[in-house]
């Protein structure tokens, strides 16, 4: 794997793993799928390809943050506020 990008990939993996702790289906479920998703691409050597995959990973991070926010917002709204007409 190209050296500078190795750091990027590891950083991405750690960040996703951290986010996975709050995953609704459980952190174990998340970690298994995270690992297999990364392993599937372990033989990619083209730096452009790697950059694209890392960008996709960053996109997943944003999706997870949005998921967690919406889930929390909807739960709190349902518990504390009157349903709108």
């Amino acid at each position: 794997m190209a050296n500078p990008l190795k750091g990027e990939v590891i950083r991405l993996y750690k960040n996703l793993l951290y986010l996975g702790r709050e995953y609704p289906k459980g952190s174990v479920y998340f970690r298994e799928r995270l690992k297999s998703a990364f392993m599937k691409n372990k033989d990619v050597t083209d730096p452009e390809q790697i950059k694209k995959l890392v960008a996709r990973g960053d996109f997943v991070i944003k999706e997870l943050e949005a998921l967690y926010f919406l889930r929390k917002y909807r739960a709190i709204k349902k518990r504390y506020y009157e349903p709108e007409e």
Partner: protein
Amino acid sequence: MSGRVLVGVKRVIDYAVKIRVKPDNSGVVTDGVKHSMNPFCEIAVEEAVKLKEKKLIKEVVAVSCGPQQSQETIRTALAMGADRGIHVEVAGKDYETLGPLQVSKIMAALAKKEDAQLLILGKQAIDDDCNQTGQMTAALLDWPQGTFASEVSLDGDKVKVVREIDGGLETIKISTPAVLTADLRLNTPRYATLPNIMKAKKKKIANVKPADLGVDLTSRLEVLKVEEPPQREAGVKVETVEDLVGKLKETGRI
């Protein structure tokens, strides 16, 4: 004005956890249960950090009262953008009886000590649902309060607050220093990602004891019993309208 904003954050049982009552009905099971920052406190921290990013205030200080684990909650606030933290150590029996009255006394003492321009709190905690700390603190300090804030804007030494009230929205203008409590629609709290948490490790958390602030933690309340809500009884299905009327008459409803 000092340009310093104090934000109170509370460590509560995570909102997504299924709460279980202890078999002796003395309280709720907390051992080994996932805890996190109170959602309304997250919104309060976000608002303070936003004000700093807009350069309207200079420093955000996160405060939490509780045992050692409260430091994790302060760390989350630091990861969201607070500059430093203050951990007011309250443990054991004192922590079990810690309520809005004691916390508001602590917050008032700290607000004076730190010369705060604003004190922002969540409107209520999802564990005790008191909705009192902000109001009590404002009263102790004799500061104006903007509670249930869904919109906050600074205007010189005044604050314009749009409040969510039963009839709709109320806009008020109050002078600083003031106490604000955050409502759900105030903002969208940012997630404390791993890189932010790592950066926040360099930020300082000061340790303070309630006695140092001259606060007496004695509670005037005693929890007698904690129970689960009554189980919903199963419904009864009927075949015809006549059956329905008959059943209603039977149970004395009509």
